[in-house]
């Protein structure tokens, strides 16, 4: 396990792609960095994605080398499974209190052999597979997890000791408890990412009731070769879907659920997933129901055209409601805009709701930062200093400031690291002048 020092130049909150990039860019300039991640592994949302748009490159193939680089960097310390309790201004920097949650496994001793996981006879919903797959009560988060150390989930542990009995290193530690740590830092970069709007947010879509209405991150896992099924199947009965629908703006641009903004990535990930379905199942029809397609980035418009040329149907329509019919199929009541607003009931056997993007974390007093009405971190000078928060010495990157795609998150992470470096230099210079 990382040995934690008493002081770091930079604290990065969040080990997703933005946080990792910010940590690498700050450490690359000679600064000592502590990266804190709430989950048991770094990698964030990106490591769970199947492909990235518009290149259709393997997402984890881009993400995992960066995870390894972070984990092995001389000037980066990583603390996983750790929450920020609070950061308070102290001298020119901050005093930070962290809470490291118990894994019930001694990280230094564990060799990642998985024998504990294989010995546990109970199955729990696997978070990495959005609950569609299973994992044991003690488990390594996924094949690319860093560190490759299991975590025991007390909610599903039957306290039978099977894991400890199987462990060849005697490193299951039932005595472990949460630990509070205090460190000093010179600056903070917040890269706390995203969550999706709840599946039940739009009652008329029944995302929390119908088995075959899926969230887009679940579809990423289903499409992944290391996903829960190994194929694209629907959850109600394992059927190969022959007709898949995407409902766009199913949680964005919608005042009724408090998400009036555009989530920016949904059009592109729907097109990407639709292409991947067509690649894996040539005879499966895919229809995207949308208000308008927003293909704003480099190469995105071409990607939109590519999807259509690969047989993806893109239909300008508003979906009013989704009803479950026989065999778990779904009937969509659709207002077809290009047909003069004609209302039709169209049947599909799997539906993906393109849900809205909402902030992954709210500071609620843990950090002296202001957020906007939409919950994303406020940026006072968005046009000139887009990585600078409302507090001096605290910088923000990635979806923490608002919905954005992977390339923009990486660019912003670099900007936040540069702003933090300049801030640290200024502090050092003024300390030198005073001395």
């Amino acid at each position, binding site marked *: 396990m990382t040995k934690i020092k008493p002081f770091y130049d930079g604290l990065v909150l969040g080990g997703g792609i933005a946080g990792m990039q910010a940590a690498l860019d700050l450490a690359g300039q000679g600064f000592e960095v502590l990266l804190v991640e709430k989950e048991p592994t770094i990698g964030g949302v990106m490591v769970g994605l199947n492909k990235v748009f518009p290149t259709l490159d393997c997402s984890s193939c881009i993400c995992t080398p960066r995870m390894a680089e972070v984990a092995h960097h001389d000037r980066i310390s990583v603390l996983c499974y750790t929450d920020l309790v609070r950061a308070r201004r102290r001298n020119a920097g901050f005093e930070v209190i962290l809470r490291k949650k118990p894994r019930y496994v001694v990280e230094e001793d564990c060799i990642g052999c998985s024998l504990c996981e294989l010995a546990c006879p109970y199955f729990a919903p696997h978070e990495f597979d959005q609950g569609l797959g299973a994992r044991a009560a003690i488990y390594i988060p996924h094949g690319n997890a860093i560190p490759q150390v299991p975590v025991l989930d007390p909610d599903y542990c039957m306290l039978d000791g099977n894991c400890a009995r199987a462990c060849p290193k005697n490193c299951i530690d039932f005595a472990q408890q949460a630990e509070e740590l205090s460190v000093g830092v010179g600056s903070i970069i917040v890269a706390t990412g995203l969550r999706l709007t709840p599946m039940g947010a739009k009652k008329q879509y029944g995302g929390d009731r119908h088995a075959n209405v899926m969230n887009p991150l679940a579809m990423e896992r289903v499409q992944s070769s290391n996903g829960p099924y190994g194929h694209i*199947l629907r959850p109600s009965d394992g059927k190969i879907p022959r007709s898949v629908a995407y409902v766009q703006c199913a949680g964005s641009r919608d005042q009724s659920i408090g998400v009036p903004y555009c989530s920016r990535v949904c059009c592109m990930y729907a097109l990407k997933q639709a292409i991947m379905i067509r690649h894996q199942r040539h005879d499966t029809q895919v229809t995207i129901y949308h208000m308008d397609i927003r293909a704003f980035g480099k190469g995105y418009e071409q990607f939109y055209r590519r999807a259509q040329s690969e047989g993806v149907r893109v239909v300008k329509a508003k979906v009013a409601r989704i009803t479950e019919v026989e065999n778990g199929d779904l009937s969509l009541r659709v207002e077809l805009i290009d047909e003069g607003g004609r209302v039709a009931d169209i049947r599909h056997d799997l539906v993906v709701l393109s849900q809205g993007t909402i902030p992954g974390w709210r500071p609620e007093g843990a950090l002296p930062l202001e957020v906007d009405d939409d919950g994303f971190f406020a940026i006072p000078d968005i046009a000139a200093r887009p990585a600078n928060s409302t507090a001096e010495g605290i910088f923000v990157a990635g979806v923490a400031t608002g919905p954005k795609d992977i390339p923009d998150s990486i660019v912003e992470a670099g900007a936040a690291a540069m702003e933090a470096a300049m801030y640290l230099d200024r502090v050092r210079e003024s300390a030198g002048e005073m001395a």
Partner: protein
Amino acid sequence: MSEPKRDWQKDLKVFRERMGGLSEEKKAWAREQRDTLKAIRQALAGGPATIPQIAERTGMPGKKVLWHVMAMKRYGKVAECGQAGDYYLYELKEGGS
């Protein structure tokens, strides 16, 4: 000087107390999972089957059957062995029960 050897059995006792023991709810959940897996194994004893076929034989919903079959597949107790129409076939793996 090396640290004293970890006594996990002693630690587990303390952990059990700290967790307030095993609740009746948790015991029932574990029992139900064992019964579900047993029913799936029995349904597959006669040979490969699709998820709807297992669901019919066990009287359990397809969603629940799929979830448990995929769990068994992940941990090497069930294997995929072909396709029947729009469904894959699954079989018990030797020594996987």
